[in-house]
């Protein structure tokens, strides 16, 4: 076995040594501990002993040369004596991986926003510029954020406008300032988010609902008497939409970057216009309801919406939205998708119009159906087919249709 002879460290802070004289020559036999060479350092001169018994095989550093501590000086071929047990190597301690610097918050909007403030606005999804700061120099403090959040939550739960918490800044002479209510703010944020993240595409089709009109005319009084509520066109539209969604479930889904999650439950949001805003309560599992059931659900939701009695559950969980813009007189509209849904359907006003039927002019009741859809999820083909399906079913409602 070949044994290395290395330059030893001959004192604290000694880093190198000079070979002064080789006491043994190449080929000579050496005994363990016998002096092998003379070495000189700036602190100590010494004879370096042989670490093993054998024959000096090779001299690697000649006399007069200076080498650092640990450098190989010679090689001994061990002969006869037992191989010297090497000392157990001191395992180098595992260098702990350099910790990654904590990722810096991405959403620093304002200077002087403290860590806790940044964290809170991120958690609650607030735009920092919305909050008025009471700290030094207008800094937004933790208290300011928490106060804002509490207010917003109160507003969402109550679902009625609350008077603005703070007095509005004074208006200039040529302007009137309307303070933004929490609902308005929420609507604004929602709309912005929807419009900014979803590539909206839009499609419109015209449905001939003459027979539906006749159906409703024929049944509305009886319905009113029996159910205590009005039978509008909306339940029919929702019914048609729901059936179409069953046929084209991709319209009842959510975009999730690397996947599209199709929702199995069909929860239809109904846009309800309020005096100074809008709210979209949801008919849960609308596909399980008959037209009458839908009518009842709609009436209930609208009534509670208008009287401020909707619960949080009423406004959550929608998978598709229907907006009866026609009730307000619109004949064509371009709705904004209620994100994170992927489609929104409007039923426009039913108007009597001359149309061509079998190459003859006829007066028919027509209604435009408009669909805004998320072009990431749905292409024109599917959107068209879906809207065709809605149109087809609406056009199929006639006197034989039972609302139950």
């Amino acid at each position, binding site marked *: 076995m070949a044994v290395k002879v290395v330059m030893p460290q001959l004192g604290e802070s000694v880093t190198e040594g000079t070979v002064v004289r080789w006491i043994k020559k190449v080929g000579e036999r050496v005994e363990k501990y016998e002096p092998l060479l003379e070495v000189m350092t700036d602190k100590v001169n010494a004879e370096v002993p042989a670490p093993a018994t054998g024959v000096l095989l090779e001299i690697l550093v000649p006399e007069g040369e200076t080498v650092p501590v640990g450098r190989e000086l010679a090689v001994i071929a061990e002969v006869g004596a037992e191989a010297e047990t090497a000392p157990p190597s001191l395992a180098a301690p595992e260098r702990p991986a350099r910790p990654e610097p904590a990722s810096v918050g991405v959403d620093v909007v304002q200077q002087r926003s*403290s*860590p*806790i*403030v940044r*964290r809170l606005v991120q958690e609650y999804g607030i735009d920092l510029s919305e909050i008025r700061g009471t*700290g*030094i120099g207008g*800094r937004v*403090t*933790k208290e300011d954020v928490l106060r804002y959040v509490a207010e917003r939550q109160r507003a969402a739960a109550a679902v009625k406008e609350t008077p603005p918490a703070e007095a509005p800044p004074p208006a200039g002479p040529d302007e009137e300032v309307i303070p933004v209510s929490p609902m308005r703010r929420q609507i604004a944020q929602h709309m912005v988010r929807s419009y900014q993240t979803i590539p909206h595409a839009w499609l419109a089709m015209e449905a001939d609902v003459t027979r539906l009109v006749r159906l409703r005319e024929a049944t509305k009084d009886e319905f009113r008497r029996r159910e205590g509520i009005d039978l509008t066109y909306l339940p029919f539209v929702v019914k048609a939409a729901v059936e179409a969604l069953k046929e084209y479930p991709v319209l009842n889904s959510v975009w999730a970057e690397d996947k599209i999650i199709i929702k199995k439950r069909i929860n239809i949001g109904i846009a309800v216009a309020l005096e100074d805003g809008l709210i979209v309560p949801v008919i849960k599992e609308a596909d399980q309801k008959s037209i009458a059931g839908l009518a009842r659900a709609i009436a209930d939701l609208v009534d509670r919406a208008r009287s401020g009695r909707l619960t949080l559950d009423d406004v959550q969980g929608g998978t598709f939205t229907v907006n009866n813009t026609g009730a307000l007189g619109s004949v064509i509209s371009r709705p904004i998708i209620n994100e994170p849904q992927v489609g929104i359907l409007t039923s426009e006003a039913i108007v009597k119009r001359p149309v061509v039927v079998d190459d003859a002019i006829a007066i028919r009741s027509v209604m435009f159906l408009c669909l805004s859809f998320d072009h990431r999820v749905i292409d024109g083909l599917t959107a068209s087919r879906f809207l065709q399906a809605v149109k087809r079913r609406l056009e199929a409602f006639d006197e034989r249709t039972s609302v139950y």
Partner: protein
Amino acid sequence: MAVKTLIEAIRDALAEEMRRDPAVIVLGEDVGYRGGVFRATEGLIQEFGEERVIDTPLAESGIVGVAIGAALNGFRPVAEIQFADFIAPAIDQIVNEAARMRYRSAGEWWCPLVIRAPFGGGIHGGLYHSQSVEAYFTHVPGLKVVVPSNPYDAKGLLKAAIRDDDPVLYFEHKKAYRLVKGEVPEGDYIVPIGSAKIARPGRHLTVIAYGLMTTYAIEAAERAAAEGIDVEVVDLLTLYPPDKATILESVKKTSRALVVYEDNLTGGFGAEIAAIIAEEAFPYLDAPVMRLAGPDVPAMPYAAPLEEAFMPNPEKILTKIRELAAY
């Protein structure tokens, strides 16, 4: 329950421990018939005799060295350094010997030793009877450093220190000796070393303090309450090793931290607390971690207005609280 001063509570703890355990001995300058220059050991030599209450030569290093020897050989010495200002000659014995005995012998030898010393200013002590010296010791693994603020904790902590198998430095604020009074239960109880306490709960802002500064911080907090600032006061009690959990829990709640200490600002122990908070409670902070401490001058002068300018007091603490609250 009896109301006692800080010094009475300390004396009670010593006497009770000496009665409970014959291995407890007291040594230091003037601890015997004089009863200690602050009378902390009054009555002990009469009850326990000269062998257990030893008047030593004027030799701080030797006092601690002899105490170490006695501790190695089965006794539980409570050594007194007459004023913390005179502890410097003993630093070698404390830091190189007592603190490292267990570690360097891989657990074969250890020092169950307490070193008591009055510290702190506000009593016209000048440069050499007013110093805070805890910072020399609060970064030596192997030592424990304890600073009671009130009689209840003083008695319980001293008992815990005497029973501890490791060397404990026990610093008593000399101004608080007779100034701070409180209810102290009769009989035996322990306040464990290593736990900070909430001396006053609050919501808006945390003040961390020790020694006389705890009393002052509480006073400032009461005044701040009238201004609508609800201050939580954390009394460190054990400086080293520090109770990080209690400190961080409080700061995470309030998001604002003020560390108050009488020692010089730079490198004083409160600086370490501030560093811990800044590093480990950063996401919860609503304002920078602030410190209020003695100025960076060689010591507290004798002349009254200069001494007052040096010492933190409730008024200065309140001003700083306001500043932090308004940030």
